[in-house]
């Protein structure tokens, strides 16, 4: 039985475990139908031309862990932020770990999606938002069909999350191969502020495939900063779909740091529904080996006087492959728009490749849209400059790569996260910089 059939047959058993009157029952069945019809994406689809999931779909995955797995904090400490207090929503093989988590219901809700789905208190929020932004594609709806657990974050009007929120999904490898489908829902009401960091981390060398879906809703004047750290082991693959809907005067940013994993596909879609929205999509990709990272972005401009900024940098070594497919869609009502898109890549090795495809579809006439895409080798003039000052080739390259990626980090608002990413970059490049970051 292939993975699709296995999933379809397991759905009945999945629903049996849930309450019969679950409000999501219809939603789940409909979602399953979508998946049944569309299935997994294939390279024939324009949007998946350069990314094939075939190699990872072949594994014999288990969908839920047989027993409960325990991990000790000291073993996973390094995956958390240090020197900064955070809320934590932590899952082990898809199951919530209260031991590793620190949630709250004090003014704001930082908790589990499963409890939000269960409690009548959250019903209005769930009904208003759940699966409302998510696209009706096969993978997203597969996630909806199996939605059970994930992070639920609700920041009410005029409230500010008093510390950043870390969402971490660990997989232990206690099962031979694991297929995980976490689902996050973030709702920031009017003038609410929140910062979120998400990461998926496998703790073994067994195969893991994660099909994650996150929906983010920012009401008027809300500010949401979302950071994704993708630094997983080589046996882990990730399809991460994130849907952001913004109301007027809101500012949302999503930073994606892709350093690890075997195949990583990021679907990131922004929809601006009100005037004066600002959307920021930034990414740094540094990969080698046979790693593959695909950024598929869409900014959908519907209202006037809005802005969007996309800045993606990629450094590709060995036989790694990258894809950047960035689309800006401007409706004819979306006048006085400022849309900026930049994608710069460095290929360190002859065998590395990048496929970059910026797409602008503009139906408004009074707009400022710019896009640029570069693919280059390391700047040899700059390299010579540094070496002539006594900096060794390896160190000089590191400094150049650091400099290349650096301006994307400018917009990271959590200092501890910024220095953490800086260190990850230095680490990834394989050298220590000659100064403290």
């Amino acid at each position, binding site marked *: 039985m292939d993975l699709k059939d296995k999933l379809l047959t397991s759905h009945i058993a999945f629903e049996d475990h849930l309450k019969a009157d679950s409000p999501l029952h219809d939603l789940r069945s409909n979602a399953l139908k979508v998946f049944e019809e569309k299935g997994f994406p294939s390279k024939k689809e324009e949007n998946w031309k350069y990314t094939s999931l075939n190699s990872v779909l072949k594994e014999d995955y288990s969908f839920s862990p047989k027993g409960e797995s325990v991990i000790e904090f000291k073993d996973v400490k390094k995956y958390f932020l240090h020197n900064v207090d955070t809320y934590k929503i932590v899952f082990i093989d898809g199951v919530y770990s209260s031991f590793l988590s620190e949630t709250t219901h004090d003014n704001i809700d930082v908790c589990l999606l499963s409890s939000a789905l269960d409690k009548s208190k959250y019903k209005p929020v769930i009904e208003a938002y759940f699966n409302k932004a998510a696209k009706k594609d096969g993978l997203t709806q597969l996630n909806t069909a199996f939605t059970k657990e994930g992070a639920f974050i609700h920041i009410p009007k005029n409230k500010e999350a008093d510390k950043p929120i870390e969402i971490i999904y660990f997989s232990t490898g206690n099962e031979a191969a694991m297929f995980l489908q976490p689902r996050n829902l973030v709702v920031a009401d009017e003038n609410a502020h929140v910062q979120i960091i998400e990461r998926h981390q496998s703790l073994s060398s067994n195969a893991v495939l994660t099909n994650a879906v996150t929906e983010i809703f920012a009401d008027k004047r809300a500010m949401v900063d979302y950071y994704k750290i993708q630094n997983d082991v080589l046996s882990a693959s990730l399809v991460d779909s994130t849907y952001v809907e913004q109301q007027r005067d809101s500012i949302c940013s999503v930073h994606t740091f892709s350093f690890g994993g075997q195949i990583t596909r990021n679907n990131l879609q922004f929809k601006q529904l009100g005037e004066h929205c600002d959307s920021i999509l930034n990414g740094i990709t540094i990969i080698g080996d046979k790693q593959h990272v695909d950024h598929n972005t869409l900014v959908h401009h519907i209202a006037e006087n809005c802005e969007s900024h996309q800045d993606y940098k990629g450094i590709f070594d060995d036989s790694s492959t990258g894809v950047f497919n960035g689309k800006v869609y401007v409706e004819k009502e979306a006048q006085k728009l400022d849309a900026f898109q930049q994608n710069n890549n460095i290929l360190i090795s002859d065998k590395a490749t990048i496929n970059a495809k910026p797409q602008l579809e503009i139906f408004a006439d009074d707009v400022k849209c710019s896009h640029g895409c570069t693919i280059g080798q390391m700047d040899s*003039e*700059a390299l010579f400059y540094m070496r002539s*000052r006594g*900096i060794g080739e390896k160190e000089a390259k590191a400094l150049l790569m650091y400099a290349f990626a650096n301006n994307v980090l400018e917009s990271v608002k959590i200092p501890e996260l910024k220095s953490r990413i800086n260190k990850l970059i230095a680490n990834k490049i394989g050298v220590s910089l000659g100064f403290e970051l």
Partner: protein
Amino acid sequence: MLQIKNLHASVEDKAILNGINLEVNAGEIHAIMGPNGAGKSTLASVIAGKDEYEMTKGEILLDHEDITELDPEERAHKGIFMSFQYPISIPGVSTTNFIKTAINETRKSRGEADMPASEMLKLIKEKAELLDIDRKFLSRSLNEGFSGGEKKRNEIFQMAMLEPKIAILDETDSGLDIDALKVVANGVNKLKNKDNAVVVITHYQRLLDYIVPDFVHVLMDGKIVKSGTKELAYKLEEKGYDWIKEELV
């Protein structure tokens, strides 16, 4: 100190340097002048070890040791410094961090420990004052958004920090106004002593009023066609290069 013997260099099979001979001793200041495209920057880059240029013939000796097989950083560690005609910028790396890295890498190559932070700070302060550079300026990204003159001053600041044996200054005067030129020249003169040497590449004798050369060489078509003293620079300023061409034929 530096001996260049019959140096030929080419890029993509195009010969640029056609047999250069030059000897620079400790304590000396040399000026190299010549029309655009003569090969002045190429000569400087070949000495500094730029691998884009292929040395087809000749020798470059530093303190009697052949350095032609050495990497640029190894040459820098031995005391060669080149101030770039067009310094590059590195966004995201401050001048301070850059020069710290350069100094500590040089020390590492000599088996020395990193320079203590307090000592580094003192040195930076001292050299910044010497060149009349605002310290705030040094915390900005290296050369990013700097004016031509600021870049050149930054080059000399780095030279002051690295204290090279031999400094080759490629058109350091271009982009500098007269006040900045005086500051830079003054800095170079203060750093000059009997154990080091300076090679100034320039278009104009203007700079040579402030950094007074012991020898002046004229480089044309990849060759040193004439050498003399400071007076030669005046003559070039007055008459241009044509009379030398005529002399040659």
